[in-house]
């Protein structure tokens, strides 16, 4: 099943609504292919349910990891200015890789993020490098590279808004979306 496809239906509906709400100004452009709320409390309705009716959590920002089922964890965290996978992150990524290698045809987006320290552009690149670190391990584990897309939102989509290490540690992350 290509779950990404179901999300695009939801996205499309949002586009129509957003499009109606905006009033066009001279000299102003509007993004027509706009998307849903991507804030990291991504249990928001637009993203977290598919049309089968069963809710699927795309992003977990809490730390209640089910250690018996790493597939239930879709977010891995990083050290400051680092794209190295921690042993815990490696275990989670490998579990997803195993699942995806056994389910070819699923499209995966790896969404890298950074904390707010450093420039926005550097963090955009850093987030992508983190996503690529996951993609590299996916490839080693036999996931088809064409099925994986690494992108980054840099520091633009923080999960935690405070300006301290506890917030920053939650924001330095890769979300595994499929």
């Amino acid at each position, binding site marked *: 099943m290509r779950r990404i496809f179901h999300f695009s239906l939801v996205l499309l509906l949002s586009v129509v609504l957003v499009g109606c709400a905006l009033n066009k100004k001279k000299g102003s452009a509007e*993004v027509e292919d706009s998307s849903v709320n991507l804030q990291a409390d991504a249990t928001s309705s637009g993203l977290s349910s598919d049309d089968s009716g069963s809710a699927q959590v795309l992003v977990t920002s809490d730390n209640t990891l089910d250690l018996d089922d790493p597939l239930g964890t879709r977010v891995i965290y990083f050290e400051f200015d680092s794209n190295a996978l921690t042993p815990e992150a490696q275990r989670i990524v490998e579990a997803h890789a195993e699942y995806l290698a056994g389910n070819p045809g699923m499209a995966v987006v790896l969404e890298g993020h950074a904390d707010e320290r450093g420039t926005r552009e550097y963090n955009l690149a850093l987030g992508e490098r983190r996503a690529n670190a996951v993609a590299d391990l996916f490839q080693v584990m036999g996931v088809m590279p064409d099925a994986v897309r690494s992108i980054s939102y840099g520091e633009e989509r923080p999960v935690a808004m405070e*300006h301290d290490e506890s917030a920053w540690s939650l924001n330095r992350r890769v979300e595994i979306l499929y």
Partner: protein
Amino acid sequence: MIKVFIGGVIALLVGLLSAPTWAGITIEITQGQDTGIPIAVVPFQFQGQQRPNADIRNIVSADLYRSGRFLSLPPGDFLSRPSDPDQVRFKDWRLIKAEALVIGRVTELGNDHYEVSFYLYNVFKEKLLAGYRWTVGSSQLRQVAHQVSDYIYEALTGIPGAFDTRIAYVTVEKDSGNTRQYQLMVADSDGHNAQQILRTNFPILSPAWAPDGKRLAYVSFASRTSGAMIWVQNIETGERRKLLQEKGTASAPAWSADGRRLALRLSRDGNHDIYILDVAASRLTRLTKHPGIDTEPAWSPDGRYLVFTSDRSGRPHIFRISAAGGPAQRLTRVGRENAGASYSPNGKHLVMVTNQGNGDQIGVFYTGNKQLTVLTDGPLDDSPTYSPNGAMIMYATQRGNQGVLAAVSADGRIKQILRLHQGEVREPAWSSRKQ
């Protein structure tokens, strides 16, 4: 008696869109007030029926004040209020210790048009320094006021003014559904006449003015899963186009001085390098090739070099490379890390985000002696941009847990906070060109 001249008659043909602005724009000088040249700006005499909204005297006075180089004397102290050269008595101004005097007049011509004239005097030398006259529509009166400020600034400091310029910036607000709404805005350098040129649910970063002052390059996202892309938008027509149809992501656009090329960061196969794009020909030339992160390119004013941020030696630092390619040379060896550099208009300095262990601050690096002077307090300062005359640096900072714009003089003496918008404001870019 001093002979009067009208130095130039300038008809403004620029058809600026006027839009309602947020009434709460304030510029708070946080350091360096009460210094500078004492100047008396007399309220401009109005002749006509319909007084225009723009008060030239107040706009000029505010411009001069926020430059930190002038002390605008309160009109309550004035002993006379001349509006015509014949009415100027220099002893009235020597008595209140004004070194410079500005007088002027606004005359209604009908059909929503006005004639504005102004004269600038050196009080001690009893000398007329400048006199100009404009005929404009009411929507251009603010711009005329900024041009008056530019003439005064240049006549008294020897440095071209940068008041009649524009800035671009990004605002972020949450809508009723708690979704972040991003707007790319263009405003006069004092924050007035703000116009939205883009609105999207996706983040907007790194606006960069083309040298023609008509186009902005910026970074945003085409879809949820597209990754970062660069667009170029004509701010007069609103027409926008995505620059590259690459598989990777692209960001950090920087225009060459001739406006024909963009330096940018592009990732192909997961590697971030600096490329130069010939915009008309859509031809890409790779400039750096390194497994580290290379990003944030910026051209030297003469177009011979680019500086960029790279973490090839560990933490991010500033490197320089010839625009023709070749080896990159590390410039910064001070501080923990440095990023986001751009050249001063004279090419002698680089402004950058520096981390010396106290968070992210704005610093100026002197390319001659390779010393770095920290100008701001941090700890989350970002996106510094020089005014076109190099006198001020605008940047993004945090106040009360919200992003605001701030400005600091290039010598660090004057500091101010600009409150331009109710929501979060970030990513300032100062146009290199007059309106």
